[in-house]
């Protein structure tokens, strides 16, 4: 585990140095992130200009949810997407061979071999939004803030696990790329799960538990949801991780280089 963390630290450091070398890109990335966040919050303000409650969520509670979603989205763009996005191409063209010869698990290297540290600006801005949302809540306790942080961590783990699980489909269906489908599904996590109809709500809670990414942490922090949500979220994260690692083992066993 320590060795993996050390490898991850080195990979992150390399990516960071590569990205900050281009200062204009840094400014542009900051600007784009700020504009996208502004657009999201403006869209939310449009909704709350017509209603005071969105399926039971007040404007401040919804802002906390949006901020939480931005935090995990930033982590996704910074650490997971830059590597996993290329898995389909690597498997199709046989480049995946090179990863299998490295002295670290394939699922780890495929997920984190390159990073986009500038995307962490989204996480920082999201944290600011959460801070604003929480500051406008009454009766916040340290226990609820800690529970929120733990659930965000669980949400980040689930985000990675589901993404890696969908990416692993390429080992069975070479031309079936689910990146864009995951992008679409991911956006459903940017709103309270309660706004969706029952089948979709159940799907996003029990099948692909994106509810843990933003709805659950924001509920615990702002809506007096039971703290029992924390072990539930942690359990879901652990189970999904185990499932992902198992599926990857099976998938890698099927891989037969460029002819697979």
């Amino acid at each position, binding site marked *: 585990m320590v060795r993996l963390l050390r490898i991850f630290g080195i990979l992150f450091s390399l990516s960071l140095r590569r990205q900050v070398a281009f200062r204009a890109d840094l400014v*542009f990335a900051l600007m784009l992130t700020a504009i*996208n966040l502004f657009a999201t919050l403006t869209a939310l303000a*449009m909704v709350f200009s017509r*209603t005071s409650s969105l399926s039971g969520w007040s404007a401040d509670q919804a802002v906390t949810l949006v901020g939480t979603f931005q935090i995990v989205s930033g982590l996704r763009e910074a650490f997971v997407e830059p590597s996993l996005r290329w898995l389909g191409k690597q498997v199709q063209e046989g480049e995946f061979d090179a990863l299998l010869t490295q002295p670290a698990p394939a699922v780890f290297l495929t997920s984190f071999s390159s990073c986009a540290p500038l995307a962490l600006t989204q996480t920082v801005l999201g944290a600011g939004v959460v801070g604003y949302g929480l500051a406008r809540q009454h009766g916040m306790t340290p226990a609820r803030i800690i529970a929120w942080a733990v659930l965000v961590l669980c949400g980040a783990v689930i985000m990675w696990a589901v993404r890696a699980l969908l990416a692993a489909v390429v080992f069975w269906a070479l031309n079936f790329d*689910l990146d864009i*489908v995951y992008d679409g599904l991911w*956006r459903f996590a940017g709103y309270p799960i309660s706004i969706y109809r029952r089948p979709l709500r159940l799907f996003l809670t029990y099948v692909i538990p994106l509810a843990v990414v933003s709805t659950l942490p924001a509920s615990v922090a702002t809506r007096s949801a039971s703290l029992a949500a924390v072990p539930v979220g942690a359990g879901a994260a652990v189970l999904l991780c185990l499932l992902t690692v198992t599926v990857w083992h099976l998938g890698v066993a099927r891989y037969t280089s460029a002819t697979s």
Partner: protein
Amino acid sequence: MRTFALVRLAIWRSSLEQWTWRSFLITIVVGQAVTPLLGLFVWSAALPGSDTVATYFVVLLAVQLLTVSFEHHTLSNGIYSGTLSGALLLPQPVVIDFIGSNIGFRLWHVVFGLPFVALAAAVTSTHVTAAGLRLAVPAVLLAGTLRFVFTYTLALSALWTDRAHAVVGLGETVIFLLGGTAAPIGLLPQPLRSLGHVLPFWPMLGLPAETAAGMLRGSTLAAAYAAQIGWLAVLIALAVVIWRRGLGRFTAVGA
């Protein structure tokens, strides 16, 4: 006449080529359907029982699929990879292949996206009339042309910067906010509502959806059509100017 024949040929060629990666195409259609569906869920929860809002977003989903534009992938990537130089040598206007590719994409979006529209219409109280749909046909055609010209113009930024995808992304963000996706333009708070009505983004998406949903009639509809035609003339003129200025900078790979 020759131009129409060339466009028809380009559509045929592009749509056949796009069919070869149809599984990926289906995932793109799913991605395109998400934003209008989110709007449907959010606004149905905000204004429960409003049939007009449900109808609007279901029609907006159809309009979104009918007007998709990917010139940042076709044109901008052609500029970055240098393949645009091949298109410049052909004895036809460069834009023809991009029009063919655009329409090809839209045809497949309709084919693969129709089940989503039908499903959304079935589970909501969608109500459209034949008259509304008839009135919306020219509005959709104009909206599709406007969106193509707008995206094409933004994609030409690839002649100056390597950030053309982000430039087009910014344009899409503005369409999301003021084009009728984040909210039907009539539900926007002032001054965004007035701003939305005078800018070219609502005519690209929300206007045809409102027309089909029966939210625009009579003189308002006539004024809306006039706005579409006016903005189309402005954007075409702008695209021509930018193309002429940018072409001088094109140096094949490394542009």
